[in-house]
């Protein structure tokens, strides 16, 4: 249990997707203009990562990993070269499902996402979640925790950036820094802050 909890914390903070690994920055910057849309993105990321990582674990372990076909008398068969294409398929389907759910039950959130919701299909942080899961040979339980943890870490980071950028609407910035310029600087400063989590994890 403590192992899972520490995996959760490390996925959310130490290996934070946007601020430590710099993954998924396009949506991170694009949808953090207002805290509400940032929160929507955070929830969507948590949902998609929490579903796709375990689902891809099942597909990888059950069909693609070396040795997955031992029961059929083919122990040397290795289909892991198919993992990228299979993962992307699963992610695309999950995003489509999410889009339908949002359209049906939360049309306002759906409208605020606009074009960025379909773009989650090719969001690198989401694919990275599944690839890390394979790379680090997580078990099923671990993959659930890892997916939810990294999604939540993304949500925390994007809501924080959204809150800061919302406040900056009243700041008198030099013209060249307004908009994305200051967002990049903020992201850098926040990632310095998140680097301290890595330091804490190392010193333990």
């Amino acid at each position, binding site marked *: 249990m403590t192992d899972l909890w520490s995996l959760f914390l490390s996925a959310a903070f130490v290996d934070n997707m946007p601020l430590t690994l710099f993954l998924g920055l396009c949506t991170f910057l694009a949808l953090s203009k207002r805290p509400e849309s940032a929160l929507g993105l955070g929830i969507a990321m948590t949902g998609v990562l929490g579903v796709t990582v375990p689902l891809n674990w099942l597909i990888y372990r059950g069909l693609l990993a070396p040795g997955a076909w031992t029961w059929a008398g*083919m122990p040397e068969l290795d289909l892991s070269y198919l993992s990228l294409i299979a993962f992307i*398929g699963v992610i695309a389907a999950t995003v489509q499902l999410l889009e339908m759910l949002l359209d049906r039950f939360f049309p306002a959130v759906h409208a605020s996402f606009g074009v960025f919701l379909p773009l989650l299909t090719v969001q690198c942080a989401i694919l990275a979640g599944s690839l890390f899961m394979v790379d680090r040979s997580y078990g099923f339980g671990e993959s659930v925790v890892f997916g939810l943890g990294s999604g939540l870490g993304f949500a925390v980071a994007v809501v924080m950036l959204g809150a800061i950028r919302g406040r900056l609407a009243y700041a008198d910035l030099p013209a060249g820094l307004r908009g994305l310029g200051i967002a990049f600087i903020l992201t850098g400063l926040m990632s310095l802050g998140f680097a301290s989590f890595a330091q804490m994890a190392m010193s333990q």
Partner: protein
Amino acid sequence: MTEILLGSLVIMGIVVGLAMGLLAFRSRLLPSGDLALDVNDRMHLRAKRGVKLLDVLHGFDIPIPAACGGKGTCGLCRVTVLGDGAGTPQATERGVLSPRERRAHVRLACQTTLSGDCAVWVPDGILSAGSGFACTVASARMLAPLIREIVLDMPDDRLSTFRAGDFMQITAPAYRLDFATLELPEPFREPWEIAGWSEMRVSSEAAVTRAYSLANRPEDAGTAVFNIRLAVPPPGRETEIPPGLVSSWLFTVNPGDSVTASGPFGDFHVRPGTREMIFVGGGVGMAPLRAMIHQELGGGTDRRIRYFYGARAAADLFYSEEFEALARQHKHFSWRPALSDPAPGDRWTGASGFIHEILQAEMTRHAAPEECEYYLCGPPVMISAVLATLQRLGVEPDAIFYDDFGA
């Protein structure tokens, strides 16, 4: 071999499984069946879900104008929509509609996807206009290498509601055209050869509708006069990108042919008042301005009128004698044509330069440019240059009226 076979099977299995799962969810989540659409509380229509409102209205022969062809840029298809079925305005609509219009539930029909029952209000004139009517081409002649004047005989009193500045919609049927077969009058053949426009081909599989401004003078009653500019592709790409679908077709019609039109529509009109009027036009931006100037001068106005018109070379300048005659006839009207790129053989003695530069040069000498009213019509580049010039001259935006061809 088994690896390839099994690999393909696995991927196919995953994709088919995902698709089936999605379809199952979709049939559960998204409602299906027709929705009810009320138009002006008078017509009660049934429409499919997920279809654009503009297409539904056109399908029921309600000719909502859409000069841009439903791309959400011209803003002509404004309608009032009530009901949840229309969803929230898209980003494209927010660029076109003012906050006041959005509060009043005005939407662009071409950007509104119907997902449930709703009620729509369209201008009454459009509802009674029907789906367009057939009229005959009275005359057609080339005015400039790319501009053709087409006069349509209007049946009955179709133009009884016409006000200068209005436009009509013209529908081109499905057709196929090879420009090499197009007959051109002698003076225009050479520019066509040089530009390679004769190599263009165009084919259109379905009926397409576009809006064109009327260039009517008072003496043109009973007919509709259009200046059609052929929308040619950028230089050097004549064989890749097809030219405009409706303008190409209008280059093929001859006197006696039948054309489907609807209208007139429009909200680009001369404002009543006593202020001096400055007209700035370029290309076929001539059409509505010509109608307005003739209407004003014919109505015996004593407002001072200046008309700045920009063309590239002397060959692109048309109706020039007409405006020279008007300027001789009316002391308070002045005609200021300018060529941006006069050809050496043009023997051009008038102003040279872009029309916004000519306008700036003359209006800086004007006693009070901010006291005038400005009517602009021309290509979007010209409009934005003139708007910037007027801003420098201190003209308030509410004294500027323009029609930028729905771009």
